[in-house]
């Protein structure tokens, strides 16, 4: 064995240790969560996932309201954030003058660095009143026939939380999409123009189909962020464990309930139930990631791998 082979081997082993360590940590977290939630797992079984009562006084715990709140707010946030984020990225790369684009891009990247408690404060003082006085009355008036926009209007609630989440994740989507779109080789756009495509056609069916995989990747990251967001959501969602169809009504999310109630969980079953909530959050995050990845594969097929070359 030559000197080179040996050093290569050592180097490879050392590098391999890093991903293995990460795996061990993740597995460790998982087992710790399972272990600590065993009392709750035993008592409530699978029913924990679909029972909608959360009553610490009677030691009766069901996670459905939190699962519901997390899914609804994340989903609505994505619905709002994807068109805005991708649209803004297209504008910045394709239409904005270089200087404008540079300034806005820097600002957007800065937005991603703002601590979420500050978003939360802004939410309480600006977003919630705005929702209460402008957005929700408008929706109620013109779209009130949909069950989504009915019921009392407090300002705080799932819609406000969704908008908040959308605002938090939009910078993510913009920055990644911007890079993806800018990375599409110019000659592909030229090829579309050479066939008589307008600017919009070249963008929508050539540039975006090259960028599809990357943009979806950005969306997954954003979704992960939305599912796990604690502070900003807790401050404006209303923290009420109930399941209501109306987006105007208060709700609760998995992440919020853990943060809010952990300190007051003063008997073992309560604590165990909260840890089981954490376990559910962990699994939801992983499942969403897997689903999103499957979606990427099915949308882009084998093409994306080659398109990236």
């Amino acid at each position, binding site marked *: 064995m030559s000197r080179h082979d040996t050093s290569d081997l050592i180097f490879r082993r050392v590098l391999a240790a890093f991903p293995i360590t990460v795996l061990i940590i993740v597995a460790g977290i998982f087992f710790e969560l399972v272990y600590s939630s065993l009392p709750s797992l035993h008592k409530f079984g699978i029913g924990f996932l679909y029972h909608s009562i959360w009553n610490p006084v009677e030691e009766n715990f069901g996670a459905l309201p939190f699962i519901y709140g997390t899914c609804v707010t994340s989903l609505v946030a994505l619905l709002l954030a994807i068109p805005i984020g991708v649209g803004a990225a297209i504008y910045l790369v394709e239409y904005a003058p270089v200087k404008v684009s540079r300034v806005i891009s820097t600002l957007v990247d800065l937005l991603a660095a703002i601590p979420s408690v500050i978003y939360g404060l802004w939410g309480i003082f600006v977003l919630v009143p705005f929702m209460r006085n402008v957005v929700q009355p408008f929706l109620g008036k013109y779209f009130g026939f949909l069950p989504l926009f009915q019921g009392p209007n407090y300002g705080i609630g799932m819609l406000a939380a969704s908008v908040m989440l959308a605002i938090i994740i939009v910078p993510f989507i913009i920055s990644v999409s911007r890079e993806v779109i800018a990375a599409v080789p110019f000659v592909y756009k030229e090829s579309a123009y*050479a*066939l*008589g495509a307008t600017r919009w056609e070249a963008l929508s069916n050539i540039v975006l189909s090259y960028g599809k995989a990357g943009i979806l990747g950005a969306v997954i990251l954003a979704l992960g962020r939305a599912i796990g967001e604690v502070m900003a959501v807790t401050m404006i969602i209303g923290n009420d464990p109930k399941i209501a169809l109306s987006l105007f009504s208060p709700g609760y999310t998995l992440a919020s309930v853990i943060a809010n109630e952990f300190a007051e969980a003063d008997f073992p079953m309560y604590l165990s139930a909260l840890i089981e909530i954490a376990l559910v959050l962990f699994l939801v995050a992983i499942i969403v990631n897997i689903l999103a990845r499957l979606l990427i594969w099915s949308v882009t097929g084998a*093409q994306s791998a080659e398109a990236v070359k």
Partner: protein
Amino acid sequence: MNTNGRIEVKNLNFYYGNYQALKNVSMTVEPHQIVAMIGPSGCGKSTLIRIFNRMCDLIPSTRVEGKVLIDGKDIYTKDTDVVSLRRKVGMVFQKSTPFPKSIYDNVAYGLKIIGIKDHRVLNETVEKCLRRSALWDEVKDHLGKSALSLSGGQQQRLCIARAIAVDPEIILMDEPCSALDPIATARIEELMAALKDEYTIVIVTHNMQQAARVSDKTAFLMHGQLIEYNKTTDFFTNPSNKITEDYITGRFG
């Protein structure tokens, strides 16, 4: 045989910012001819053919002086419809640029964007163009497969099929064979000879044998100037300009 597809260039100057890339170029390309453009790297060949379909518009702060007429019509007036000009003057690039779509959708792309949805029309055009570009026999059983799965030479022929699907009069080719092996190159050259009946072709090439083999006329550019433009046979056997002679005999780069 239609007689459209004439390009006339009159006293053309072209600037990238302050840099003048073309200097007082005048030439005429007759319909149904193949014109080869040769010259050292950076002399302005690509720039010149990109002026013919206004692809140079895409680069900011460029400027065109002089006149370029296609079929007698000035293409640099304010009311020139650039989109329809580009359908009339197709282009094939050095690197093949298949879209990440199926083979069928690549060829049909130019038709679909102008709203042609009739499947019979689309099917016929796709088949006709793939036959014309000598690709049909190789792909007819898997038109639904991704265009990215084709070989480099096949991809380039696909790009030619895609270009002729919008029924252009002129096809511009910028070093279409430079990434291909000799066999794939020979197929593209045969294809050009076959396409000549219907289209005017302007091809940029670094390969002088190729220019001599395929073209009716050859243009030689250097430092943005058109040094010589002549019938290909005369151009290579009896160049009228000393610089041309030096270039084609390989006396400089």
